[in-house]
């Protein structure tokens, strides 16, 4: 009997998730021994036609990282969904939208304008824009289309499991692969990480005071960070209380606050909304001015609270003007 076939694919992502697979180090040899890697464009020379040639459901599992914005990514997601028995959203971008998801703050046209006209390094006097179809003497050239918003993987295709993180911690990947091979998987739709807040595994847990009264939120470059004290107590926006554990507090170990890449625990519907609740509760002051001053020190609320989860948020995206970036008249 043949070994189970596994595929990896990337959509709108940085490649860090692929790196995390390589970070399995010698453990990857055990994986390769147990499975057949049949598709992994970043590392192995397989083509889309190889996937198309597979029977439906031929792959036991496909790990897809990255958010979905381009028509090509959408097509590949659908294709891989058909060919794989289990689809696993791998990493923050496919789980909740990730950093590319922050593009949902801007209209499609505004992004194209910035990139092809306005950015300081662009020289484009003819205003050339990429076209989905271009006719040349030799025939028609095509490029993938650029969708109006960024989607998570589960807003594109049916997803069986989620492996969160930016990138997913090696321990979680190894655990997921083992569970897959042994068939000891939790119910469909589960996030393959502990369902408890990151603070729970934080080595500085004991130094977190019972009550926090923050008058000014700090950014890491503004203070000398005490390596032993709770980062919240030092006024840093550490997303630990709002974030799923599973990373063994890796960023805290590097003396940096948690940015929330593992996403929310199961009980949270909207990561940013819950973060607002948590940080407002830690803010000192009963008077408008005092509260205002504290809140002013949160420089980038949306980039802080929805850093990895804008497309998965309840609001997903606001449509302004005609929805194509033209300002409202």
């Amino acid at each position: 009997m043949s070994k189970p076939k596994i595929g990896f694919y990337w959509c709108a992502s940085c490649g860090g998730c692929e790196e995390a697979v390589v970070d399995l180090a010698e453990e990857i040899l055990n994986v390769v021994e147990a499975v057949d890697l049949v598709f992994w464009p970043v590392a192995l020379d397989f083509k889309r036609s190889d996937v198309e040639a597979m029977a439906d459901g031929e792959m036991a599992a496909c790990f897809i990282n990255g958010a979905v914005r381009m028509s090509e990514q959408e097509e590949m997601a659908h294709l891989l969904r058909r060919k794989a028995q289990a689809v696993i959203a791998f990493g923050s971008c496919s789980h909740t939208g990730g950093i590319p998801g922050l593009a949902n703050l801007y209209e499609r046209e505004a992004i194209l304008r910035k990139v092809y006209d306005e950015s300081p390094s662009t020289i484009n006097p003819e205003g050339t824009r990429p076209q989905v179809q271009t006719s040349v003497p030799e025939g028609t050239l095509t490029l993938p289309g650029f969708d109006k918003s960024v989607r998570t993987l589960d807003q594109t295709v049916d997803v069986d499991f989620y492996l969160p993180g930016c990138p997913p911690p090696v321990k979680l990947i190894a655990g997921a692969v083992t569970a897959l091979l042994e068939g000891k998987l939790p119910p469909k739709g589960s996030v393959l990480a502990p369902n408890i807040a990151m603070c729970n595994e934080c080595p500085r847990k004991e130094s977190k005071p019972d009550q926090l009264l923050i008058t000014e939120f700090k950014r890491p470059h503004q203070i000398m960070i005490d390596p032993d004290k709770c980062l919240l107590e030092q006024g840093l926006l550490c997303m630990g209380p709002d974030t799923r554990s599973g990373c063994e507090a890796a960023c805290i170990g590097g003396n940096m606050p948690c940015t929330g890449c593992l996403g929310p625990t199961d009980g949270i519907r909207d990561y940013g909304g819950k973060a607002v609740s948590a940080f407002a509760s830690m803010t000192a002051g009963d008077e408008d001015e005092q509260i205002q001053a504290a809140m002013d020190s949160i420089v980038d609320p949306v980039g802080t609270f929805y850093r990895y989860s804008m497309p998965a948020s309840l609001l997903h995206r606001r449509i302004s003007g005609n929805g194509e970036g033209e300002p409202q008249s």
Partner: protein
Amino acid sequence: MSDQHLSNNPPGFEPKIVGFFCTWCTYTAADLAGISRMDYAPNVRIIRLMCSGRLDPQFVLSAFREGADGILIGGCHPGDCHYQEGNYKALRRHHLLTRLLRTMGIEPERLRLEWISASEGDRVRDVINDMTADLRRLGPLRLEPVPKPDVPAPVEDAACPNVALNVAAGEKL
């Protein structure tokens, strides 16, 4: 309010407001406005909370997602909270949530916090009328629908991802 703005609204647009009112003050005030037979804009749907401090920002975001054009939070005046300090919690959340929403392109007028005591039925009327007028001017909150996955036609054996079926007997990781 300019006619220009009004003309941009879809025909027949009536703003929908969700009111989260604390049971001790603002909800009682709304009751008073009712039994006093005050006329006010019928645009608000009121949800009674035990305290404005119970308001989870996720409630606000859910209401926006479900079609609200504005949210009105009503609580007791500072110092009058039945639970001592619930309204201060609401105040801090309101400050932070308004900032967050603004950076997401949602106007601060769409999330309003008002202290209205049980005896201020007329203030309920005035605030709701005022907010309704504001929202008529701003127009509908247009959110992009959350995309739904296109679940492909079920393929045999693909519905249940029981991967273990494919592992050769005796083969170990």
